[in-house]
């Protein structure tokens, strides 16, 4: 799967070079941005609520048994902000948005629409890749901020409601505010920005290199999602070890 890394780096570089075109393509950036929000906001909400909840459910009773009830909020808070929200939302977006990008660009490739653009002297990177990469790089960090907040809420509600935990709302968020500071949230948001670039570039690249009709489109979609997720997890480790220094 890694034979294409060089091509992807090249596509990323070309997209960076095209950044001055962003203002010109702003309408497409907005369209993509709202499409991403529309397609994923509800799922982000449900997913992060339950991730926060299950975190509290798994850790709460263990901590409470050892007399550490006060630490539940901080533990849920920091795991959500630094790790779970960025990674899980990136994976969700890879599945929901990356797949759609690869399918759309892949079908444009297969049905010669991209060739038609090139004959009209329209650069497919400016026209197709740039708006998508910019939109996802803006949208995913915002979704992650939202996911962190919803995840905290989910953790808090489970901590209050579960009879083996029973930590008050005030105690949960009191501890959370003690442990989690703005830098931790910024850390998670920064990671999600990097993941967004991965999903955007990998998916657009897979779309652009699609060959061989409808089955080729299917293969591209699968590859886009799988490669995005693998790269997200690898980069998560790399970024975390850099950011922890």
């Amino acid at each position, binding site marked *: 799967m890694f034979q294409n890394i060089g091509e992807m780096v090249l596509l990323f570089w070309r997209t960076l070079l095209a950044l001055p075109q962003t203002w010109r393509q702003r309408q497409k950036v907005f369209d993509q941005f709202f499409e991403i929000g529309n397609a994923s906001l509800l799922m982000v909400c449900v997913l992060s609520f339950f991730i926060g909840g299950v975190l509290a459910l798994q850790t709460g009773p263990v901590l409470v048994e050892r007399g550490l009830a006060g630490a539940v909020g901080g533990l849920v808070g920091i795991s959500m902000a630094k790790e779970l929200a960025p990674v899980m939302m990136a994976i969700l977006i890879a599945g929901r948005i990356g797949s759609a990008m690869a399918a759309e660009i892949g*079908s444009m490739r297969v049905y010669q629409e991209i*060739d*038609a653009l*090139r*004959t*009209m*002297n*329209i650069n497919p990177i400016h026209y197709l890749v740039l708006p998508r990469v910019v939109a996802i790089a803006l949208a995913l960090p915002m979704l992650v901020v939202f996911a962190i907040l919803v995840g905290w809420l989910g953790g808090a509600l489970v901590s209050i409601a579960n009879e083996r935990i029973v930590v008050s709302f005030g105690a949960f968020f009191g501890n959370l505010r003690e442990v989690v500071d703005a830098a931790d949230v910024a850390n998670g948001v920064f990671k999600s920005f990097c993941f967004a670039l991965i999903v955007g570039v990998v998916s657009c690249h897979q779309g652009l290199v699609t060959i061989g009709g409808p089955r080729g489109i299917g293969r591209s979609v699968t590859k886009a999602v799988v490669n995005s997720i693998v790269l997200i997890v690898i980069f998560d480790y790399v970024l975390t070890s850099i950011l922890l220094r």
Partner: protein
Amino acid sequence: MNAPQLTPHAVGLQVRGLRKRFGAHEVLRGVELEINPGEVFVLMGPSGSGKSVLLRHLIGLEKPDDGEIRINGEPLDSDGIMSRYRMAMVFQSGALLNSLTVGENIGLYLSEHRLKPPAEIARIVAEKLEVVGLKGIERKMPNELSGGMKKRAAIARALVIDPQLILYDEPTSELDPLSAVVIGEEILKLKERVHVTSLVVSHDRDLAFGVADRMAVINEGRIVAIGTPEEIKARPDPIIQRFLQADFKPNHRNHP
């Protein structure tokens, strides 16, 4: 179209020793071709003989393995050539962007390159649609159109570029005979009105002999004949004669 700076000067095309292989399959085997400014040149040949691949080379979508292509003597791969000459290709499938309306498709070149204000673009789009007999379908999506309508919309999209050179890949292959005649007339009108150079790939013998100033026959990646329609018709070469005279003869099997 009547703005003086847009009056195109005709372009000629020279192809020398063009070769292209895909894997083990050599599709173009040394194509030699010269197309004169302002003429309608028809290229005929059996399916799979490399016609579409040749067209893709001529508009810069494929890089030749060997040989060269020149526009008015300038190599096709020289810098900025695509912005100095206006060329358009009508793809066999039409290749309209499915996510845009027909009107947006046709105006795309003008809107993406910010060449005209939106109202002006709308006017030009309506005018070109009328030219190809599709008046008033701006708001339709490409997937609501029949194959023939898509092709005509694609021709309208090519006309918007106000091209000096148009490449048509089987422009009448999905059209009813009446629409095919309209397209043929349009090709001729364009030649007279704006002196555009046209290269038409077609199996349609009526169209070919109706519009061609000169024509060529390609077979297995090589040009096997080139000349005026009369010269081609008079060629004794069996490949050409078989291709020109192939006819559906349902009674043959009963009367061997």
